[in-house]
Structure formats: structure tokens, C-alpha cells
């Protein structure tokens, strides 16, 4: 009997040419989905809506300004949320019981009440404090608490409560050995947090923060209730005059989808960046994924080979 290793070296292995498993389910479901989409198309084209006017409103000045303000309040609100949220997370993990209770109480209140109520509370603050007196600064509350500031406070402070929990999870995900190593080198708690723990927590914090961003983009539509000139207020203002309610809601829908799509793509690449070095293989970009999915139809071999 010959040695198996020797044998393998002499005879090169023949490549397997197997007939791939047929995925009939994919064809059936594709046909079904196309049929449903066609039905939806037919229904919408016969609906009592003037589709031709929708593109006209898309770049209406009021609508564009509204979309710009939606973007602005989202970015600023998120900024407040991230900075304050990180601070709250560090406070929550503090050994000082007063500080950690304050952080707990903050999260309890702002996570426990609806954003709409919070926005209304800020906007109507002048009802109970007609005068703002900060000692060095004095003014009528109504002049200070503009729709913009009320929106920023409402969205930002509410977001901070959620970001605090996200950051806390990130901080706690960092191995305790890292803190010990930093302490053993003579670093104090604050410096260890800043230089060692937070940079490593980022990988866990970034993905849910992207989600929060997109959530905020949509939640900001609530600010129309307190007269902030964002996208939702722009379209309701117009439709209250010309009564083209559905047409303008379609305009808002399209704009929100455009904004969230742009940010989803951005989020994907930011996450991909933070995974470098830690994940064994970077995830496919949408283009690579689409190409691979199309291949499954032409070749029949599924994406099953690659989990």
C-alpha cells in the first residue's frame, strides 16, 4: 500500500464540477414581489393625487430651507447629545455616589418623557419664567426661547439621555486590564478614561450613534409643533394654503428618504472604518453586495457559501 501523502503529491486533485442546487424559491419570490409592486404602481397612478406637481414642490424655496433647518437641528442636537451623553456616562460610572445619582436621575427623567412633551415644556417656559435672569444676562424669556433654541434643547437634552446609555455600554465593553495597565503606569482615573478607555469604547459607541442620528433626523419633524421652520412645518404651511396635502406629504417623504439614505451610506463607511484592525474581514460595500446577490441568479450558487 502506498503512502497516502506520497500519493496525493503525485496525482493532482481534480476540481469538482458539481451541478449547483437550484434555488426555485428565489425566482418565485422575485415574481411575486414584482407583481405586488406593479399592483401598487397601478393603484397609485389611478389615485386622486396630482403627481405632476410633486417635483415642482421638491425644490420650492420654503421646502429647501425647511430641509436645511432639519439638517441643522439634527446635527446640532446630536452634537449636544453626544457631548452631554458622554459626560453623563462617565458620571454614571463615577465612584462618587452623588455624581452617579445625578446622572441616573437625568436619564430617568429625559428617557421617561416623550420628546414632544419636552419640546412643549421648553417652548412654553415663558409661562412660568417670564424673565430670564442669569445675573450677567437678563432678557424676556419669550425673546430668548425661540423655536430654534427650544428645539435644540428639547432634541439635544433628550438625545443625551440615550447617548449616555450607549456610551456607558461602550465604556464598560473595554477590558478591565486596560484600566489596570494604565493605573500601574501611574495614570490617574481621568487621564485613563480620556487616553485609554474612551478611544477604545468608540468602536462600540459609533454604530448605535449612527442609528440615533437617523432617528433624530426623523424625530426633528416634531419641532413643527413648536413653530420651528423645519421640513415638516414647511410642507404643512404650504398645504394649509393650497390644500395639496398628500402631494406635499410626498415631498416630505422624499426629502426624508433622501436625507436618511445619505446618512445611512455615511454611517456604513464610518462603521467600516472603525472595524479596521478588529474584524477579520471588512464587510462588503453595498456595491459588492449587490453584485454578489445578482450572481446568485445567474449561477444558482447562493450567497450561502459566504455567510
Amino acid at each position, binding site marked *: 500500500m502506498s503512502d497516502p501523502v506520497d500519493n496525493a503529491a503525485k496525482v493532482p486533485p481534480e476540481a469538482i464540477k458539481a451541478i449547483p442546487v437550484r434555488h426555485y424559491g428565489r425566482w418565485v419570490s422575485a415574481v411575486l414581489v414584482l407583481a405586488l409592486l406593479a399592483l401598487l404602481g397601478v393603484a397609485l397612478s389611478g389615485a386622486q393625487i396630482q403627481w405632476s406637481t410633486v417635483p415642482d414642490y421638491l425644490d420650492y424655496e420654503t421646502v429647501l430651507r425647511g430641509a436645511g433647518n432639519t439638517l441643522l437641528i439634527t446635527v446640532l442636537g446630536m452634537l449636544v447629545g453626544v457631548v452631554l451623553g458622554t459626560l453623563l456616562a462617565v458620571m454614571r460610572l463615577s465612584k462618587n455616589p452623588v455624581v452617579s445619582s445625578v446622572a441616573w436621575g437625568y436619564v430617568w427623567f429625559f428617557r421617561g418623557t416623550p420628546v414632544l412633551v419636552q419640546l412643549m415644556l421648553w417652548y412654553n417656559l415663558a409661562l412660568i419664567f417670564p424673565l430670564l435672569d442669569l445675573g450677567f444676562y437678563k432678557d424676556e424669556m419669550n425673546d430668548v426661547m425661540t423655536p430654534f433654541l427650544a428645539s435644540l434643547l428639547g432634541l439635544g437634552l433628550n438625545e443625551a439621555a440615550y447617548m449616555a446609555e450607549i456610551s456607558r455600554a461602550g465604556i464598560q465593553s473595554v*477590558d478591565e*486590564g*486596560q484600566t*489596570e*495597565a*494604565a*493605573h*500601574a*503606569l*501611574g*495614570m*490617574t*482615573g481621568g*487621564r485613563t478614561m480620556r*487616553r*485609554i478607555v474612551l*478611544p*477604545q469604547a468608540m468602536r462600540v459607541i459609533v454604530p448605535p450613534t449612527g442609528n440615533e442620528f437617523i432617528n433624530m433626523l426623523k424625530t426633528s419633524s416634531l419641532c413643527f409643533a413648536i413653530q420651528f421652520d423645519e421640513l415638516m412645518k414647511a410642507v404643512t404651511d404650504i398645504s394649509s394654503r393650497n390644500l395639496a396635502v398628500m402631494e406635499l406629504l410626498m415631498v416630505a417623504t422624499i426629502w426624508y428618504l433622501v436625507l436618511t439614505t445619505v446618512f445611512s451610506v455615511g454611517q456604513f463607511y464610518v462603521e467600516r472604518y472603525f472595524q479596521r*484592525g*478588529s474584524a477579520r474581514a471588512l464587510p462588503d460595500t453595498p456595491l459588492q453586495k449587490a453584485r454578489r446577490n445578482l450572481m446568485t441568479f445567474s449561477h444558482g450558487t447562493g450567497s450561502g457559501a459566504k455567510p
Partner: protein
Amino acid sequence: MVRAEGVHKSFGAAHVLKGIDLEVAPGEVFCLVGPSGSGKSTFLRCINHLEKISAGRLWVDGRLVGYRQKGDKIYELKEREVAAQRRDIGMVFQRFNLFPHMTALENVLEAPMQVKGETKAVAGERARRLLDRVGLGDRGDHYPARLSGGQQQRVAIARALAMEPQLMLFDEPTSALDPELVGEVLDVMRGLAEEGMTMIVVTHEMGFAREAGDSLVFMDDGAVVESGHPREVLSHPRHERTKSFLSKVL
């Protein structure tokens, strides 16, 4: 250099250290051996106050660790003061604990620049020298994930040495390494010992203890069972417990 008198440590109901007395002289290589769970790592961690002792006294360089005594009252040190004490004590961990978001060189630079406020020029010069010394002069720009276990542990030693410590603590520095990588780390440690660094080493490497060690303590169940010169204890153990342990590891 290090003196312990009746050191006790409890974690809740678990009594981990039950009265440790020992003394480590300057320049000495002091080996702590014993079965896992015997409290040797805990004792090591008490020396730089990563663990608080529950009773007894522990001095490093004549100063109480983590406390200050005035009359018969004992005061806890502030965080800043504890950090200052730790600057002079280097520590090497079983699992390396390198900072994964920094390159090897940045790992070594971090503490001198952040804690001592050294300039990049001063700290960088020393860091490169230390990396050279542990045989990794060409790996300064590598992230820890791209280094082998042995290389990571050598960077960790360089990182601890960058603070120019008076005392080095090694907590099973080779236990997480593949057998073939153990040698390169022990070589670096032997070099340090020859230069007269005071070292306390928790280890299962009896060969290292025998060659490089000046004293050896065998611990079991939170207490010192026997101590003496490594060759003496390892070759002629007096206690049954030591004999049975050594018969399993040698």
C-alpha cells in the same frame, strides 16, 4: 525595597491572603511560586495598590503602600498620591494589556509623556532605545494585534521600563504564551536581572527561578509555606505541600 508584615486580603467572604511576611532587598530577583489560587498574584497586585490590603502593613521603599500613617491613625491616600507611588513600580501582566489603539512605540511613549510630561524628543529617544533593547527596534510602528504574544509581552516590558521604575512586578508574564515564545521573554527578564533591577516575579517557570532568582517563596492557600534560595527550595523542599507541587511542575 519591599517589606510585608502580616498582610491579609479578603474579597468578601473569601480570605485570599492570610498573613504574609516577607522582605525583598534592593537588586533582588524574588520569585513567588505556588498553585493557582494560592494568592501570589493577589499579593503582587497589593504591592502597587491595584488591590487594597485588608490588614497588616506593606512598604515599598520605606513608604506605606496606599496609606499614610500619622500617630496610630491611618489615612487613605488620594488618587493622585497613589498614582504617584505607582510611577516608580513597573508592572507586567499575564495578558500583556497593551493599548490596542496605539502602536508599539506609542504604547511605550504614553506614560512618560502623559504622566511625567516629557517631551516627545526625550521620551521618543528612550522609547526607541528600550524597544531596541527588547529586540523590537524595527516594530515600533506595528499595532499590538500585528505582533506575536512574545513580542507583545516584550513591548509591555519596554512600556513599564519607560517610566524608569525602581521595582518591577511580573504577574505570570509567560503563562499566556506559546511554549516556543516563552524563551524570548525570559531572556529579556534575565537581562534585567543581571543589570540589578529589583524584580518580584510570579511564575511557573522553575528554570528561570533557579537560574535568575535570588530568593523564592512557595505560597499555598494564602500563606507562605517555605522560602529560601531557589536552588535550595527547588532541590530540597522541606514541606510535603512544596514537594507534591514541585513533583507536578518540574
